[in-house]
């Protein structure tokens, strides 16, 4: 018996080594690693914004308006003399917040809906999929625009608008996975043990379709951040004086000729963030051996 325990210990160690190997594979993928590093940097920005920002992001000093980048104001100042660098750093909180909130909400509900639809099949599936089709019949940004526009501007309406429009991607992805998993012999073998349907979904189906959901989720954070800033840019999302990148960009448009830095830097920050999540998502996708699919691309 002790012999066996010893052997099991060795086997477990091997398993761990194997896991490390997988991490190593991920590590070789420099895209993914640099993406994760960039995300880490962003998280630092968001958490320690007050420590990093050199100036008060809300402090207006009209005598300093539209200054070019300098040592005091690394990214210059905006039309009200606020420090753009500080505002950009604080903006991380908002964009990451929206991205994570929306993706958390949509991935969980979308996955649940997809599981239900795929496993139950029949009329329920038919109904859910037509619902998905209906939501997907609207170009994402347009539906979000209208919902946000009608709800009125603000953080919560942006989150709601994006959540209402972004769940179908997960539902479709998961349903597809479930349908192919359901035919696999191990699911049938599990059914022969006669557990509840819930048990099969939880133990046998969900673990096998979670990986693509994680990949999709990571890429979706990128999409959501772009969409949220687009809404704000159009004036339908987060409103000034809140330092949201899209709305900062918008306020710089009238000064594009004289002070392009006001629009340039917030945009750069959006790219940086979206890039980070796209990198990480793409790396995850590659190390999980998942193909580039339309779901993943279209989001």
């Amino acid at each position, binding site marked *: 018996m002790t012999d066996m325990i010893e052997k099991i210990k060795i086997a477990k160690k091997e398993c761990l080594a194997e896991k490390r190997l997988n991490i190593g594979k991920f590590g070789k993928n420099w*895209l993914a690693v640099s993406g994760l590093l960039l995300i880490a940097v962003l998280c630092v920005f968001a958490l320690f914004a007050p420590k990093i920002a050199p100036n008060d992001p809300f402090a207006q000093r009209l005598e300093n308006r539209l200054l070019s980048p300098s040592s005091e104001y690394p990214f210059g100042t905006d039309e009200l003399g606020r420090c753009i660098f500080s505002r950009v750093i604080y903006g991380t909180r908002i964009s990451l917040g929206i991205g994570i909130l929306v993706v958390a909400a949509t991935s969980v509900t979308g996955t649940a809906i997809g599981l239900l639809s795929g496993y139950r099949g029949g009329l329920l599936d038919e109904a859910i*999929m*037509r*619902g998905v*089709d*209906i*939501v997907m*019949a*609207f*170009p*994402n*940004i*347009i*539906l979000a*625009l*209208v*919902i946000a*526009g*009608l*709800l*009125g501007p603000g953080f919560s309406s942006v989150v709601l608008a994006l959540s209402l429009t972004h769940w179908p991607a997960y539902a*479709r992805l998961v349903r*597809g996975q479930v*349908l192919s998993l359901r035919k696999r012999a191990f699911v049938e073998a599990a059914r022969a043990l006669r557990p509840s349907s819930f048990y099969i979904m939880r133990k046998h189906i969900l673990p096998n379709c979670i990986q693509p959901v994680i990949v999709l989720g990571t890429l979706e954070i*990128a999409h959501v951040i*772009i969409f949220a*800033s*687009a809404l704000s*840019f*159009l*004036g*339908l999302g987060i409103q000034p004086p809140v330092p949201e990148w*899209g709305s900062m*960009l918008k306020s710089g*448009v009238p000064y*594009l*000729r004289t002070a*392009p830095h006001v*629009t*340039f830097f917030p*945009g750069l920050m*959006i*790219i940086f963030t*979206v*890039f980070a999540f*796209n*990198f990480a998502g*793409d790396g995850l996708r590659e190390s999980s051996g998942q*193909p*580039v699919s*339309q779901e993943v*691309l*279209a989001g």
Partner: protein
Amino acid sequence: MWKYIAKRLAMVSIVITGVTFVVFSAMYLAPGDPAEVIALARYGDDLSVSQIETLREAEGLDAPVHVQYLIWLGHLLRLDLGKSLVTSEDVLTEILQKLPATAELAVASLLVSLMIALPAGVLSALRKNTLLDSGCMFVSLLGVSIPNFWLGLLLIWLFALTLQMFPSFGYGSLKHFVLPAFTLGTSMAAVTARLTRASLIEVMGQEYIVAARARGFDEGTVLIRHAMKNALLPVLTFAGMQFGYLLGGAVIVETIFSWPGIGKLLVDSIFAMDFSMIQGCVLFIAVLFSLSNLAVDLLYAVLDPRIRYDRHD
């Protein structure tokens, strides 16, 4: 095949019916009483209670919701999208008037995106894992990450304001097309290039490609006769979705470049709380999008002999 077409048609009509329902109920998302909101849009801030009540009766807003929906649906069937609450123009006429501008922008952008994406995607796939491939994919990942409103502004700053090569806004001449089409086209090109590459790499790894080589064909024949058709089928389906991107992206690009299309019309009506115009625009866009997806599906059925009866499965 006919069964497939019939099924697709049935599905599209279900979806469009659902779309009308969503569009109709979206109106109730706005906080407050619709009649009041409409009155605000129509008469401005100083309005009396009686004005609101007259409006409620005139617009049929006193009827139960489902009756209102059915009435509205009845109007839709007669292609009557109502009148603008602000300008009192006929909504459909207004939309059709703006359609050509949007359509032209969409076609131009699609051309730009395909001209960049297909060569880049195919080349990357064929030179898989080389510096060229990594470079292309890096640029395309960057392309996906650039918001088009920022790219648009950057292009305006560079080519319109600084170099003064192209106009920064407006519609009319060919020169006006360059910046908007490029803005909208590049972000789509990035996505399409990635899909093209992935799809071609997958196809080139299939056993039937090895089998084609085994028949003594040269690489060019293998690529064009055996790989391309299979590889481009998913890209084609994606073109349907891209049409949605185009319409969505048009909203932003049209706003930046003051392009007189449906996108700008929609944004303007949202700010004016012009309900019937919002409904009209969104409905029009959604129907257009659904029909384009239908067209792609049917095209797919013609091109792909395997045509599966439920492709979503």
